[in-house]
């Protein structure tokens, strides 16, 4: 509720963690065990939560000239965590995931405490968990919680042969009664999906996490099968490269700032000497939220993973790191920013 008197100040706890174990047994995927650097117990979290790891800037001229931050789903014990477990797919060179893949046991990392945005719905009659690739991570904690509390849950994991993240965790939960199916080709998954979507008990909630194409496949199939959108929950991961966008003009602090194509609003504000608190610079952490006014006829393109749908529709705030205004003819500025 930034900007609302008396309601801000909900700063997420910054945790000092140390890498205590690494597992590189699945090609391209690294699983890490992180403990509190001072040996304290870690805050419990809701299944489906993530932490945001702070990634330092690389050396000058490298692919990572500024510090960044990446969100990773927590896969371990959630109610009484002695450590936090995450799994990271190595993406582009020089990015945050490559930095994680270069960490060693004993290295210190800083994380923003758990944030829940993909929680199991307690009233669901059943929980259908569909994950692809590394997207299985938030579903592992869903399934663990379901087994603990005796909730009806079924998980299907689509992954390339030999690249099944968390296979051991899933096998252990299956041994304790969870239904787990593994599929290694897309055709089999598509066939299974249509069958699954048509045979669930009333009141089942569907949770889906994976690459954008996978989630589109699942949500479109669910819609075709008559699933209400309110029973279909998706969790995005891996921020894909955003298009550079068109240039636009911003009215801020009594002046006009030009935001060129390929430059973010945050960078343009910084270049104009205006400070905006920020952290991940990719629309995940929520730190760079700014209050905005969209002029008559103007349009705001949010592109972040932080605000919910209602907030995006209201158009009163934006994430300066990824959100853009569309250039509108006539108006003096395409967006007003209130710092």
């Amino acid at each position, binding site marked *: *509720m930034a900007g*609302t008197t*008396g*309601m801000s*100040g*909900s700063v*997420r*706890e910054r945790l000092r963690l140390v890498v205590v174990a690494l597992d590189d047994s699945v090609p391209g995927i690294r699983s890490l065990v992180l403990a509190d650097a001072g040996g304290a117990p870690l*805050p*419990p*979290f*809701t*299944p489906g*939560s993530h932490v945001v790891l702070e990634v330092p800037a690389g050396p000058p001229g490298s692919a990572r000239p500024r510090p960044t931050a990446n969100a990773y789903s927590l896969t371990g014990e*959630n*109610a*009484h965590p*002695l450590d936090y477990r995450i799994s990271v797919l190595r993406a582009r060179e020089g990015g945050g995931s490559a930095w994680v893949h270069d960490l060693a046991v004993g290295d210190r990392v800083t994380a923003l*405490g*758990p*944030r*829940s945005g993909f*929680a*199991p*719905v*307690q*009233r669901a009659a059943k929980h259908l968990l569909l994950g692809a690739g590394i997207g299985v991570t938030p579903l592992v904690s869903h399934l663990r*919680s379901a087994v*603990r*509390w005796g909730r009806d849950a079924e998980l299907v994991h689509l992954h390339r042969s030999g690249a099944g993240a968390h296979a051991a965790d899933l096998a252990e939960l299956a041994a304790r009664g969870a239904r787990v199916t593994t599929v290694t080709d897309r055709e089999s998954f598509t066939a299974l999906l249509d069958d699954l979507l048509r045979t669930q008990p009333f009141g089942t909630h569907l949770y889906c996490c994976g690459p954008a194409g996978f989630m589109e496949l699942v949500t479109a199939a669910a819609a075709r099968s008559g699933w209400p959108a*309110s029973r279909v929950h998706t969790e995005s991961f891996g921020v894909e490269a955003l298009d550079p966008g068109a240039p636009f003009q911003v009215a801020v602090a009594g002046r006009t700032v030009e935001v060129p194509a390929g430059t973010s609003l945050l960078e343009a504000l910084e270049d104009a000497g205006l400070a905006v608190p920020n952290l991940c610079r990719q629309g995940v952490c929520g730190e760079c939220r700014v209050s905005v006014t969209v002029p008559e006829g103007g349009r705001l393109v949010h592109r972040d993973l932080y605000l*919910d749908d*209602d907030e995006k529709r209201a158009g009163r705030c934006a994430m300066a790191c990824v959100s853009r205004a569309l250039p509108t003819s006539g108006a003096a500025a395409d967006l007003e920013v209130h710092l």
Partner: protein
Amino acid sequence: MTALSLPTSTAADLLEGFPFPFSHDSYRYSTNVEPARSPVATPVGQWGASVVTVDSEYHRELAERAVLLERDPSRYGVLPHMEVACWDAMLVLLRELASARPDAFHLDVVDAEGPTYRWRNDLLGIEQTFVVGRRETLPAEPLAWACQQVQEDVVLLDQRSGELYGDAGVVTFAADWSFGFDLGMTFLEIHGPVPRVHAEGVIPRAREFILRLQPGQVYRRTNWTLTVGRRLDVATETYPEWGPDRAMVLHVDDDAFGHLVHLRVEVQHLLRLPESGAVMFLIRTHLLPLADIARVPAWRERTAAVLTELPQDMADYKGIAAYRSRAAAWLRDCTSTTTPAPASPSALAPEESR
């Protein structure tokens, strides 16, 4: 007319820990939420250091809750999908008790598997080892058991489809509302009768705030009204017992009036439960008679100003329209002859000039 006995005197800790709610000479509803666990200094003491508060009324209030639950089971309700939230709430309440009063309450993990905890409540002589999620390891249902040990009323809000539902709770000390009637309602429905707050956006803003609350964050606010007598149960269900007091109190003498009319303050805490993702809403009710409010000059003057200025619709909703003017006048006119001497003059003296 109801028989009401005058209280003899207020225990010192109830005055010292009283959460005086007014920061201005007028009061309006606002989304007055602030981060919890920070102590607030008052002219005579402080409040707010912990999420749950244990005071000298502990045994009496818990005994009263037990009687009320026995008489009216609708003060406790749990919809079936709230089982996990109830365990969650129980663990948080036990942890908060142990953190507020480490001398009297102890919670230890004895086995990470399960996990298994040992709980000791020295004030009530309880020792219990339990496994989370295993009902048979507790003497009662988890939320009910926890509420036998905290003075707070508890409401658990389930969050689904971007909405909050009051789907479980133990509320024995409701201030003119009915938990049993509200069970299962949305947040907006529960607050439907409150004047002004919808048009002014207070309740929708509060709802937005709660929807975004994350585990680990704890916020608090205060609310207030007046109550005749040191009476915690002023629920809708027992209106015939306490409703007539509002008219009766107009006819008692000044001395009795100052002892009967209480400023009733609720310290409300809001936190997200980690396992279930439900929101726990705690209501801790504090009652202090006007005679004690008057012992603190700053409280006496401010309360008189607020009661005088309060708009009629708000006074009507709070159920104090009949006697708020007399309460304000009583506070304004009360002199050293009608005010009892402070119990601890040394604590009050430095503040007298404020």
